[in-house]
C-alpha cells in the first residue's frame, strides 16, 4: 500500500542495514525528540521566527524520510518550503500534528511486532 503511514520497504531496509535492535533505539529516540520539534514549530510560528520554523520542519522531514513516514515527510516538507507565510491559517499545523500521531502509533507497533 503506497499511502501507508510507514512505507514498509523503507522501514525494512533500515532494519536490514542498521539492525532491528538499533532501529528500536532510533524509534525510541525519535519519539522522545519529535514532541520538542513539534513544539518548536508551534513556537516559531507564533513568534514569527522564520529560520527556527524552517529548521524544525526540516528536521521532522529528515527523520520522517529515515523511517519511511512518507506522508509526514511530505507535510513537513511543505512547511519547510512554504515558510511562515504559507502557515498563517490557525489550523495550518493540524494535518501534520494528526499525521505525527498516526506515525508514532505505527512506529510503536512496528517495534513491538
Amino acid at each position, binding site marked *: 500500500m503506497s499511502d501507508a503511514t510507514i512505507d514498509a520497504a523503507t522501514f525494512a531496509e533500515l532494519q536490514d542495514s*542498521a539492525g532491528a535492535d538499533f532501529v528500536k533505539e*532510533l524509534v525510541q529516540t525519535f519519539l522522545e525528540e519529535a514532541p520538542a520539534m513539534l513544539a518548536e514549530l508551534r513556537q516559531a510560528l507564533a513568534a514569527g521566527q522564520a529560520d527556527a520554523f524552517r529548521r524544525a520542519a526540516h528536521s521532522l522531514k529528515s527523520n520522517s524520510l529515515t523511517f519511511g513516514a512518507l506522508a509526514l515527510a511530505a507535510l513537513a516538507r511543505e512547511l519547510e518550503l512554504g515558510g511562515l507565510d504559507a502557515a498563517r491559517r490557525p489550523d495550518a499545523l493540524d494535518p501534520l500534528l494528526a499525521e505525527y500521531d498516526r506515525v508514532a502509533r505505527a512506529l510503536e507497533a512496528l517495534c513491538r511486532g
Partner: protein
Amino acid sequence: MAEPDPPLARLLVADDNKVNRLLLTRGLEPQGHSVGCAENGRIALDMLRREPFDLLLLDIEMPEMDGFQVLEQLTADPKLRDLPVIVTSSLEGLDNIVRCIELGAEDYLPKPVNAVLLKARIGASLEKKRLRDQQKELVRRFATSEVAQDLEQSGFALGGRHVRGSVMFSDIRGFTALVESQPPEETIELLNAYYALMFDAINDHGGVVNQMIGDGLMAIFGAPLPMTDHGVAAVRAALEMVERVELLNTRRLAVDKPAIRIGVGIATGELVAGYTGTQKRATYTCIGDTVNLAARLEEHTKLAQRTILIDPATCAALGGRIPVDLLGAVALRGKALPVEVYAVAGRPAPCA
C-alpha cells in the same frame, strides 16, 4: 588480552538532530572508525580546532552556525582547509547543493544516507586525504613552508608572473682553496653547517632559498608570497648571515681551522617569478635584470673588499634604517651603464 586495533580514522559528525547523529555514529563505528559528535556548527568548529579529525560529516540546517558557515570558516583556516567534508543533508534545491560543493565540500549525500554509499564515499575521501598528506610531506621536506604553501594554493601550476622583490646571492670567499686544503668529509661537514646557518638566517627574515650551487646560494625576498619590506628584510638577513658566520668561525678557530668569510650581493626590482622545470621536478625561481645585478654585486664583493653590497633600489628601500657607504659608480659585467654600488656598513641602527 590483545590491544584493540587503533581506529581507521577519526570522524566528526555535525548534526543538530539526535536521530541523525545516532544513525551516522552507529553506522560508522562498526567500520572501525572513532566518531565524535557535535550538535551544531559552532561546537563542530571548536572540536576541529581542539583535536585532530580526518573527516567531517556535515549537516547544513543547524542552529547557531549552519553548515554553509562551517564550510566558509574551514576554507579560511589554513590548518583546516584540507579537511575532507562530506555534506549529508536533505537540502531542498539544487543551488544549495551546488553551494556546498563550491564552498569546498568534497561530496554531497542526500538524507536518508545510504549506508553502503556512505562507506564508499568515506573510504574514497580518506584515501584522497592520505595521498594529499603524503604529497604535502614531500613538498615540505624539499621546500620552505612559503613555497610549499604557494605550491599547494596554485595547485602545482608551473606558471610565471611579474613580482617586485629582492634577490640575494651569497658565497664563501676562497672556498676552492679551502676545499683543496682539507679532507672531503670536512668540506661536506662545513658546507652542511654553513647552509644550516644561512637557511635559518634567510628564513627568519621571510626569504626563500631557491638555489644552492657548491658554496653559493640564491635567495628571494617578496616571492612567492608578497612581502612589503623585502629590501630591508634581505639586508637584515645578510647581516644575520654575517653574524652567524662569525659564530661559526669562533668554533672553527677553537679547533685550529681557518675562518671563512662570505660575500653577499642584493638587488631589488621587477622579477619574473615562477616554477621552472617539469611536472616531475620543478623549482621556484626568479629571472631578469634584478637577478643578474644581484649576482654581479656578489662577485664585486671580492674586488670591493666589502661583505655586503647592494644596488640603489635596495638602498632606497632601507630609507636610512641601516647605515650604508656609497662606493660610487661601478662598471659591472653585463651592464651597459655603471651602477651606483653601496656597501652595508654594519649592524642596523637602533630603533628610535
